[in-house]
């Protein structure tokens, strides 16, 4: 794969380089050397979007982020170092986040923003030390002294002149008389140099996060399996997490739109709405929920793009840590578990009892989805002698020798308990319940339907 700008090769993949493609080559030349290569025109708007996505995702590490020329981002992490356990751990997390978005970056870290930027952009020669991260001011100055002058954009027009007078690196440039340099070159050159060496204050205008979150990503190809969308979706979640952290908010509901290829007529995007019981801003939990939902989804058309929108947000609550951890986990843990189970099994398959005040066991024994909130059950009555298992539908029993038969002839142990209800809505249940025992001593809850054609039914098992 090769990226072309103004007809000249700007970047290429490793395979293209092995095929003989070189930087600065003409587009036609590429087609002649390696005909299989995909030639792409550079898309500045997509690069802007990518940079914006990275900036949003990195907002989870610091709210102070700004764009810098040459596709760079500056992060002021001085306030975040303790939280993320030191500069090294923080750098690793930044690298991992950007890799999760599908991009590579060169990361420089230094006490001054301009210095870090210069270190990040420098491609070290063989005689230079490799690291791009320094922690102390002295080390930074030593490293900056070895950098070539043309790294500073303002020095590029004077590159030839500076080389001629022997100022190859920044150290030599700084040793030149300041007044003369100012007269002969740009004032931006000296300003940049001062900021990089920490001799002038640095002022930035930090990016302000938008008030509403909506991020979109295009898939590389037409995706036909919902599972394959997880990578794109998790990079959107990463952006959402960055945005939530910057806004000090937690998300309660978000929607993922799966945009389909437009055929003859427009196809409405498939929407995946995810509601959370407890507002969350943790990447791992949101990704896991999305994974389970995507795993259940069946696509009716290939997907070409994903869009994520935060529908409902709430203020982020600080963790309410108790001195000793509770043995049964926190309520938040339980809510997370319910969400996860609901996402995979469906809301109708994760149930808690909601006993209804009714004598008919099948109505009384109502179970409702555990994820929904509802008022507490009002039923406080307790009926004794009920079996633990109820049959979903009572089984009509066979009769042998005038006795109900289920596996063996049943012997009545106790009863009857008369039950008559439901006459008000034409679901009349008029039954006499008995406890019966089979020959193997297992007990059953059976009833005789009190109709003209009386029949025995099995309704429960004493477990």
């Amino acid at each position, binding site marked *: 794969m090769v990226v072309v700008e103004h007809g000249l090769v700007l970047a290429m993949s490793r395979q293209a380089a092995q095929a003989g493609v070189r930087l600065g080559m003409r587009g036609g030349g590429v087609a002649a050397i390696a005909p299989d290569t995909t030639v792409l025109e550079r898309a500045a708007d997509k690069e802007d979007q990518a940079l914006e996505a990275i900036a949003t995702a990195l907002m989870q590490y610091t709210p102070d982020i700004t764009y810098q020329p040459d596709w760079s981002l500056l992060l002021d992490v001085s306030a975040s170092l303790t939280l993320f356990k030191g500069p090294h751990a923080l750098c690793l997390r930044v690298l991992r986040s950007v890799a999760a978005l599908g991009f590579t970056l060169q990361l420089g870290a230094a006490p001054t923003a301009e210095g870090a930027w210069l270190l990040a952009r420098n491609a070290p020669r063989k005689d230079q030390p490799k690291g791009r991260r320094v922690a102390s001011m002295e080390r930074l100055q030593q490293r900056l002294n070895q950098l070539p002058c043309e790294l500073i954009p303002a020095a590029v027009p004077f590159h030839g002149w500076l080389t001629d007078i022997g100022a190859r690196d920044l150290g030599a440039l700084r040793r030149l008389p300041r007044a003369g340099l100012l007269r002969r070159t740009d004032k931006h050159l000296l300003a940049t140099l001062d900021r990089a060496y920490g001799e002038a204050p640095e002022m930035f205008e930090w990016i302000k996060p938008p008030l509403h979150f909506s991020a979109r990503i295009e898939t590389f190809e037409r995706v036909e399996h919902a599972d394959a969308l997880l990578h794109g979706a998790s990079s959107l979640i990463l952006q959402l997490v960055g945005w939530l952290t910057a806004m000090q908010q937690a998300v309660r509901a978000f929607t993922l739109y799966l945009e389909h290829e437009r055929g003859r007529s427009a196809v409405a995007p498939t929407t995946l709405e995810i509601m959370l019981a407890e507002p969350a801003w943790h990447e791992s939990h949101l990704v896991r929920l999305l994974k389970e939902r995507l795993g259940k989804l069946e696509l009716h058309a290939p997907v070409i793009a994903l869009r994520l929108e935060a529908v409902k947000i709430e203020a982020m609550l600080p963790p309410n840590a108790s001195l000793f951890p509770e043995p*049964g986990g926190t309520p938040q843990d339980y809510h997370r578990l319910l969400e996860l189970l609901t996402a995979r099994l469906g809301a109708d398959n994760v149930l808690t009892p909601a006993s209804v005040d009714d004598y008919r066991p099948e109505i009384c024994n109502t179970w409702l989805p555990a994820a929904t909130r509802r008022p507490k059950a009002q039923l406080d009555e307790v009926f004794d002698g009920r079996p633990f298992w109820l049959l979903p539908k009572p089984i009509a029993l066979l009769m042998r020798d005038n006795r109900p038969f289920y596996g063996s002839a049943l012997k*009545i142990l106790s009863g009857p308990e008369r039950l008559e209800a439901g006459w008000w809505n034409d679901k009349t249940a008029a039954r006499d319940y008995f406890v019966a025992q089979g020959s193997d001593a297992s007990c059953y809850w059976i009833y005789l339907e009190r109709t003209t054609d009386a029949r025995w039914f099995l309704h429960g098992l004493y477990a």
Partner: protein
Amino acid sequence: MLTPPLTITAAAAQAGRLAMRDVWRASELAISRSTTCSTGHELLDSELPNQGWPRSALIELLVQQHGIGEMQLLKPVLASLAARQRVALVQPPYLPHAMACRAWQVNDRNLLWLKPASSADALWSAEQILKNGSCGAVLLWQANVRPEALRRLNLAAQSTDTWLWLLRPIAAAADASPSPLRMTLRPAAGGISVDIIKRKGPHCDQPLFIPLDDMPVPLHIPQPAIDDHETDVKRPPAVVAARSATTVLV
């Protein structure tokens, strides 16, 4: 000479046994530091290592059929767990009756009933609940479990503080299992017959009869059946009444 006689009294033998608590004899039940919860049935407690259901372990209950008193066997432990923590029922064979739980003093508000569509989903759910650790107990019903799934469940159980019971058909008793405690359950009048087929300790020779309070029992003591009506002339009238009452009911 006044040397004391060299006889070992019973008390001394007991003291010696206590001093060597780290030595385990094959004839004894294992004593370990693992946490257990009393089953609530004295007879069963006395036959279990550490006198109770082990926590953080896969306990297998192999039932002859569903509805023979297996839940009543677990009733005391469920009642104590459900008072504070949640109890998850994963893929039960029938509808759990919340009213029965309430009558048993098991807090029914803490019950969670999962109805996974497939066996794989059920195992996944059980594993997630164990990993999450916010539930007190998991009861999982499965007919056919592959050995690797059993090992996985056992590992998941070992890493949490959750009780886990796996209820399987009795036919699985012949299969190998990593579970440290397995027992078969068969119906018995007024209780349940428990046969411990695997435990940390000696082999359990005979099935235990565990009486269960809430198991329905006949209200009257069954009378010996009278075969011949003609010969038994001096029949007491009470028996006649009882017999006639039975025929009416049946």
